[in-house]
């Protein structure tokens, strides 16, 4: 007999642990980039341009002779910054709209219709439309992607909050004279912590892919900043001469998103089965 976790889970706990290790490594890279990177990520050296991986430059150099390893390490800073920013906006807005909608049904009708309309736009297209209005830049990428995932988060929070609101302990609290703020802060928000952890790891993973797409299209972070997406975008014309240039930044994006997905998946399998339903159905990829 398989347990519920192995029956629905992907990979299981060992893989999730590996995912956590990768995330921790990337976090260390992001925190200590200036000390870990062997060279200045923006130092130009025309003498060694497009050189293959060697003892001096482990990941080779790009068309300006910049050290790819150092740029990849510094790229983890922007990846972490964008991920944290997007999660903050998505979860902050999502919790506010989701809980308000569940607690005040009339307001909820309106807010959830707004969410419906936002979800009528495919994810990347909505981000692109917001970039058109805001202009390109780090903060604007974060805001645009954050708003995209705010809609899904609001819907999940709304679903879970409605379920929690109908639990017997909330009825009991109401019968004892508890007011709305108490219901929200004592009974709803604490129970949202685990589902939101799951959502945060998925949003963090999606944010990496969407931000990389925006950078690649030339509509994300300004090109002078070393991000993994910008590195791929800049090096694409040299792919036949220096294929290693694209390898490492691409692997970093994939590795970051993969490990976050592993953790999110494992966490979702450990959730209360009744709350898992909120994550079913249509996800935004």
């Amino acid at each position, binding site marked *: 007999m398989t347990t519920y976790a192995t029956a629905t889970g992907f990979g299981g706990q060992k893989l999730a642990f590996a995912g956590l290790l990768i995330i921790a490594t990337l976090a260390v890279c992001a925190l200590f980039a200036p000390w870990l990177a062997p060279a200045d990520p923006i130092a130009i050296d025309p003498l060694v341009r497009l050189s293959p991986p060697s003892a001096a430059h482990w990941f080779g150099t790009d068309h300006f002779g910049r050290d790819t390893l150092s740029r990849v390490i510094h790229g983890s800073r922007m990846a972490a910054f964008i991920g944290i920013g997007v999660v903050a906006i998505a979860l902050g807005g999502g919790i506010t709209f989701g809980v308000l909608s569940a607690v005040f049904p009339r307001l909820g009708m309106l807010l959830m219709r707004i969410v419906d309309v936002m979800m*009528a736009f495919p994810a*990347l297209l909505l981000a692109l439309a917001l970039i*058109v209005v805001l202009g390109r830049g780090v903060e604007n990428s974060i805001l645009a992607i954050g708003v995209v995932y705010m809609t899904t988060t609001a819907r999940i929070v709304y679903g879970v909050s409605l379920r929690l609101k109908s639990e017997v302990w909330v009825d009991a609290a109401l019968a004892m004279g508890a007011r709305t703020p108490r219901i929200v802060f004592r009974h709803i928000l604490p129970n949202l912590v685990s589902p939101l952890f799951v959502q945060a790891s998925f949003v963090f993973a999606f944010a990496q892919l969407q931000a990389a797409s925006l950078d690649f299209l030339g509509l994300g972070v300004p090109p002078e900043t070393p991000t993994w*997406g910008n590195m*791929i975008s800049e090096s694409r014309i040299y792919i036949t001469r220096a294929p290693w240039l694209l390898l490492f930044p691409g692997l970093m994006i*994939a590795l970051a998103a993969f490990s976050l997905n592993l953790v999110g998946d494992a966490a979702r399998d450990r959730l209360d089965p009744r709350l898992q339903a909120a994550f079913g159905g249509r996800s935004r990829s």
Partner: protein
Amino acid sequence: MLRYLIRRIGAFLPTLLAASFLIFVFIRLIPGDPAAVMLGDQATPEAIEALRVEMGLEESLAVQYLRWLSDVVRGDLGDSIFFQVPVLELIVDGLETSVLLALMTMVWIVGFGLPVGMVAAARRGSWLDQSLSGMSMFLASVPTFWVGLYLILIFAAILGWLPSSGYPSIFGEGGLANLRYLLLPSIALAAPNAALIIRLTRASMLDVYREDYVRTARAKGIHPLRVIVRHVFRNALLTVVSAFGFTLAALISEAVVTETVFSLPGVGRMVVQSILRRDYPVIQGTILMIVLLYLAINLAVDILYAWLDPRVKLR
């Protein structure tokens, strides 16, 4: 069924209207005079004034929106500033590439995702399941443009088997053989989306495995393969079919990146190029059309799902 149809379509129209309003106002959210923004830096004051009058910018927002909407309904999406041709014409031109790319991608997704998901479910918990599941999750985490660039490197630059970019119409010279231009793009686009189908097929088959009628079938001594195909797969297909729908819908927006990598003359690449060129009528028109298509596909999926599973209508 009829009542469900009416209710579902009743939700579709207001959403589409609200979305169209958002698309209409977004250009007015850009700081500055909309007419000046649309015409760019080189525009003369006379041209800006002429466009202001043409756009009816002196009227109230509601009047402007209604006028725009009635134009849109009659198929007039305005003219491209860059190309000086109607936006609708540009969209129609790009449609062949985008639709064929999406269909070809779906062929890969269905042909690869369904069997792999079924095998993983049938061998649940085994090393095969673990590695297939791990692989599918990795595929879902890889950027499509990165996969696309390496496909170009290997199959176009090194091996020389397939073209690296562009797409000549199948109705022109070359005929159906031109589909080979879409082979690499569709594989790149299929990778992350096949992963979703693998996961869903596996999960929904496992859900069905737990049903009583499957236990009964197995207890009766029916061959395990027959149980999987006749009892489990047929019932699991329901969830998967609806996933095909929203995967197809998701492809529309993900194709934006893939079409750019492979320089395909599709609608998605046009969105990106018109953003870079600040060709706002084209941005507005293409986004509107994509949202319309996206909502229509989702509506069709919901109706199909209700038709396949009578239980839905009761809810």
